[in-house]
């Protein structure tokens, strides 16, 4: 029994660790897309931020400077995306793909040129990383059944970006539904003309949304490089930005919806790791079948249970004044 509880807690802790970069990217996407700017480039921004944070953390030995660098780089890439999509009204998908290709290529070029380690950055000391934090009381509560292991292994013992992420989900949901800025942001994704007629700058709002998205992906990349791992390596984002995008659609462009979708994907991934090599009768579960599960479930759930996912009305449509 105790062992079963421990295994379940470990599974949930794994879920949270895996879901963290997804949640951050999805929240970034919630801001950007609710303001009407489609962002395929979550993946690229996360990758660039991972490289920047690992580089700066290894040069300075400070995870905080690493985090700052990650956020700055991701924001800079967001501005490029913003300039292409908002100011010059370019195709948002094309710009996003360009961001991804740019990040994939540039990180490799700089990594090889600066460190000569085949696209990796030097390994970081523990002082230069965000390490798991042990919350007060986790030792004394350890003996209490159920609450003890849950508190000690799930709630306590996560890294700082994980806690930050949870706080940011609350902040995102609150901003978008309760604040003037958030309501205007959503209006600009639905009816930019109305916002413009009210005398509020459409471009200004969209730029702010895109920048916030950059900040979030910057934290995601930093988490990958200096909390979850101890260095940058080639293509380390490994498609997680795209999964976050799927979660965003799954969650119908709402903060909590996207959050739970990310948790679901993280959970499936954590289960997949644990299910591998398990036999059901004489039948060994193949790796591939388990790996396909998150995608299969997305399709099935979206088609059968969740219902239609409707994007903000003017998501992906550049705004042109006075048509």
């Amino acid at each position, binding site marked *: 029994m105790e062992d079963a509880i421990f*295994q379940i807690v*470990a599974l949930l802790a*794994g879920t949270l660790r895996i879901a963290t970069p997804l949640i951050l990217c999805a929240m970034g996407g919630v801001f950007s897309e609710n303001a009407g700017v489609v962002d395929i480039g979550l993946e690229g921004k996360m990758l660039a931020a991972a490289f920047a944070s690992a580089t700066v953390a290894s040069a300075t030995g400070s995870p905080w400077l690493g985090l700052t660098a990650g956020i700055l780089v991701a924001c800079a890439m967001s501005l490029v995306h913003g300039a292409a999509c908002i100011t010059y009204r370019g195709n948002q998908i094309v710009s996003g793909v360009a961001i991804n290709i740019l990040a994939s290529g540039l990180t490799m070029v700089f990594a090889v040129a600066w460190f000569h*380690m085949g*696209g990796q950055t030097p390994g970081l000391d523990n002082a230069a990383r965000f390490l798991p934090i042990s919350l007060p009381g986790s030792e004394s509560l350890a003996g209490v059944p159920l609450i003890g292991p849950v508190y000690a292994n799930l709630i306590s013992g996560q890294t700082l970006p994980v806690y930050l992420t949870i706080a940011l989900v609350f902040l995102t949901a609150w901003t978008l539904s309760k604040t003037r800025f958030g309501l205007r942001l959503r209006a600009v994704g639905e009816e930019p003309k109305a916002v413009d007629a009210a005398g509020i700058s459409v471009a200004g709002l969209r730029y702010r949304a895109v920048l916030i998205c950059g900040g979030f992906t910057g934290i995601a990349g930093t988490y990958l490089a200096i909390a979850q791992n101890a260095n940058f390596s080639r*293509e380390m984002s490994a498609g997680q930005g795209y999964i976050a995008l799927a979660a965003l659609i799954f969650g119908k462009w709402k903060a909590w919806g996207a959050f739970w979708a990310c948790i679901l994907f993280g959970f499936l991934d954590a289960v997949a790791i644990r299910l591998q090599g398990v036999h059901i009768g004489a039948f060994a579960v193949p*790796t*591939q079948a388990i*790996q396909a599960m998150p995608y299969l479930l997305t399709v099935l759930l979206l088609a059968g249970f969740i219902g239609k996912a409707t994007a903000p009305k003017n998501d992906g449509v550049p705004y042109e004044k006075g048509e």
Partner: protein
Amino acid sequence: MKRGGIRRIAALACAFAATAFLAAGRPVAPAYVYAMGGKFDRSFSEALYRGAERFKAATGIPYVDFEVSRETQFEQAYRHFASRGRNPIIGVGFSQTDAVKRVARAFPGTKFVLIDGNIHMPNVLSVEFREEEGSFLVGVLAAMASKTHKIGFVGGMDVPLIRRFACGYGQGIKYADPKATFLQNMTGATPEAWTNPARGAEIAREQFDRGVDVVYAAAGTTGMGVLQAAADRGKLAIGVDSNQNYMHPGTMLTSMVKRVDVAAFDAAQAETKGTWKPGHVVLGLKDGGVDWAYDRYNKKLVTPAMKAKVDQAKADIISGKIKVHDYESDGRCVY
């Protein structure tokens, strides 16, 4: 415009003359093509680089090398070297197979060496390793070092080659500790499985949660995440391909080394002596092609009893007393 044209023709003529001259003389001028990871990947390519450096130091013959940033560049690299009269051209990594095939056909007078691949052509030497034998040895060490009698393996992409690592490792574990539990995970079914250290770390943590205290990673850069996770949790880890003991002293039990450097050195050396032969060579423990790493970084972790046992196993494999089953021979694994 006109001058440029003349210059181009002159350059072409020179190139032709040069190839004709080189084809006749065929001096030894080795060229090395690194794997995707690049020259200092702390793994495969770095071993190739060490072999190249050793050759230069031993013979005084300079070499040239090439780092690719995309898989499509392999063929360009080989063509470039072959057309400049480089010989032999030595590359490492399974993913170079197609490039070597195509270029070897176009340049039948040039000698090619492919390490970790298998091509049957009259001007290609393929060198492979008995990974199952080296993995067997590190499996013996893992079983003896484990206190929980639960031992883990994290593979990269789910391909027969990696199954071969896992299978040899499992046999070694069962040889040293028949009652041990062996858990194995593959990172994925796509090439991304080689480059996902975060997932590697997560798989390792999951194995630790299930009681594993020694884990062996054969997963490219994904493996770096596994080694890091072990260091973070204070568990033991085993590296692969190159000696990775130095990466986390204190938690690195050993590494299963593939002597790519020996293969790279020998191939170039054979050419200088005129003994180079095409064909397919498989290097095992007997040939010094694979081994376990023992150095100042893991000296404290390997007890005399462990060392004695693994040395015994090594001698027995070499003498043929222990037969290590090769997964790829029948697609099955028997412990």
